[in-house]
């Protein structure tokens, strides 16, 4: 009982800590602006104006980038790097989630800004032909989180695939008895740029089932259970990049022995 109380206290502290970490972060809804810079492939810039502060931010570094026909939910931290290759201060880390709010598409010229030359992101999986190093044991119960765009269950390229690939490598080596996949959705409404935003409760189940189906394909024969929870709380897992809202929109794979 004492241990449980301590655990609850620790969890509360962690959650509170994560929740408090919104200081210095920005979160707003905007119609994206595409700046047509050309430094080679994938080098165009994405900009988004925060109507409340009047600031324009460079949101290009988001793992899932905007669609110029729809508004985006921007969440990020002002970058320590003061360079402005896109003509605005950058958010990094940053997430942009496509919302079902139509926008007038807007493209502006490069105006002398170079954009960014494309480099492979850090979370980039190797081809199947490259052997994955076997993670060392001993193996014990472990949780692998995967993160999503607002209200979506779609695996994010060069983000979720990397997280899952790492998890699969570990699971294949550790051979747990089963995997419990829990989907979470941030269903508690929050006001952002005058809009009441909340994820659909169904998103939690959709995320659990998407991850479960993917894991069934990647680790055939693995016993998988699915659960889902709404009103997700933030976590401080490093792959959410310190963005509490991103950490809420997740699924967790718990390897159980």
């Amino acid at each position, binding site marked *: 009982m004492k241990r449980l109380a301590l655990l609850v206290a620790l969890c509360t502290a962690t959650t509170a800590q994560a929740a408090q970490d919104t200081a210095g972060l920005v979160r707003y809804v905007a119609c994206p602006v595409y700046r*047509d810079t050309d430094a080679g492939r*994938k080098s165009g810039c994405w900009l988004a104006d925060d109507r409340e502060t009047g600031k324009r931010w460079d949101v290009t570094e988001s793992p899932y*980038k905007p669609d110029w026909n729809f508004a985006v939910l921007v969440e990020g931290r002002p970058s320590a790097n003061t360079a402005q290759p896109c003509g605005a201060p950058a958010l990094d880390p940053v997430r942009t989630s496509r919302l079902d709010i139509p926008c007038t598409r807007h*493209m502006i010229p490069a105006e002398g800004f170079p954009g960014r030359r494309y480099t492979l992101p850090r979370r980039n999986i190797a081809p*199947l032909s490259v052997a994955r190093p076997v993670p060392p044991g001993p193996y014990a119960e472990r949780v692998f989180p995967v993160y999503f765009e607002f209200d979506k269950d*779609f695996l994010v390229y060069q983000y979720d695939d990397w997280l899952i690939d790492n998890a699969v490598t570990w699971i294949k080596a550790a051979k747990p008895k089963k995997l419990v996949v829990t989907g979470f959705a941030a269903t508690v409404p929050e006001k952002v740029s005058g809009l009441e935003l909340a994820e659909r409760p169904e998103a939690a189940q959709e995320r659990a089932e998407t991850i479960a189906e993917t894991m069934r*394909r990647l680790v055939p024969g693995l016993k998988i259970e699915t659960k889902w929870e709404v009103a997700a709380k933030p976590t401080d897992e490093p792959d959410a990049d310190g963005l509490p809202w991103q950490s809420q929109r997740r699924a967790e794979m718990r390897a159980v022995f």
Partner: protein
Amino acid sequence: MRKGKRLMHLLPQKSFALPLAVLVLALSVGARGGDGPDRWWAPGEGRVLPAVLDYDNANGTLRMLTVGGPLKTAGHPFFEPLGKDGRACVTCHQPSDAMSLSVDSVRRQWDRTNGKDPLFAAYDGSNCPTLPQDKRESHSLLLDRGLIRIERPWPAKTFNGNPVKPDFTIEVVRDPNGCNSGPTYGPEAGKISVYRRPRPVANMKYLLAVGFPFDPKQGYALPLDPEDGKPQSGNLMADNRAGSLRIQMEDAATTHLQMLKALSPAERKQLQDFELRVYTAMQVSKTGGAVDSGGAVAGPARLRDSEPGALGSIGEPVWSEFKGCERIPADEAAKLTPGQLAMRQSIARGARVFREKMFLITDSAGINSRVGFGNPVRNSCVFCHNMSQMGNDVAPGQVDLGTTTLPFADPWDDLPLFRVTCTGRPHPHYGKVIYTYDPGFALTSGKCADVGKITLQSLRGLSARAPYFSNGLAKDLRGVVDYYERRYSIGYTEQEKQDLVNLMGVL
């Protein structure tokens, strides 16, 4: 090489797959009309398929290699008529046409047989089986644009064995051929008739190759073959309805061949074994010479000997086989005619344009949605045509270029037009209501977001198998370039367009 001459060819020394004795015997048939063997391979004729087989076309010479050949085709299920219509697989997958079917071959067979060739079978070699079969106009889609009728179940019933509940409805807006509005072949009968080009049955190891474990366009790990449990490449069929050769051949046997019984395990094995041994590509450019000489290292032998599934952006760049033609040494150049030199330089420029000419890709599902590249995204042809040696997609290649869907598709009054209404989330680019000639991958996945997506085409042997795109909208290679220019306002110069045409002409 002169017309009608039978020539002996030795394969390159690196040809590890063929024993020397077979190499020496490998016979290249000058099957070019005249006094040579017929270009058309008729079902059941029992010819021997040589290990090396060359066919001339307008841009040069196509070469087909059959590893382990020659192959006796008598009794082989790819070459024997298996169904009631007298067709064989080879009917629509002709060696002279890069194992696809050119509209030139279709017309020649119509003229030679007065429309009696099994190719023109009522089931799918006519615009609709209900039409009078002795009239040319009843076969106009095949004769004019090389299109075969594809009958899909509606509502979509399965995807790799999993039940699908479509999130869209389909209505027939226009039906010039009577199939979709009639009681037997349209939605009223639980079917949809669409019209598509036959895809090449060659270079299969590339089309089956799996580079990464995920399908970034669908947001899942790759589906597994229900038979062997291995991940499926998703690059075989235009609508990805068959993820393995076994599923594909069973689908083709019951539909295109009208087989009344299932393929036997022995027939399936023979078919798969053959399909995995066939490589085809252009060997000689009519103007530029052999594509494996003078700095170029292309051609079917290279395809046969290379590892499939490599991503060009992190390995051997796509079409870098022609890099050696960018700067031909003076002593080498002196051996070429001015025409040869100019063509080789043009092909090399075309390869660079293919890789490096950036443009804004917009509103194309599979690229701009749902995978998070953004809409628009700046990239070049190799963004999607990214596999070394082949130019197909290392990931499953379901992309909507707009070739079948309004407003991007060209106006065609001979194709059926469907109105798709999304019942769940709207399509990311078209909205809730979509007008399309062919919903493509959506007929397999049941997802509105997949309407208009067609699996990327193979780019090898193009010169032998016009017209292009799944619905034959481009009658020639220039038409392909022109479509991309219209669709994406790329801004190709006239020189760049010609260089691209010259490149595609020698693949």
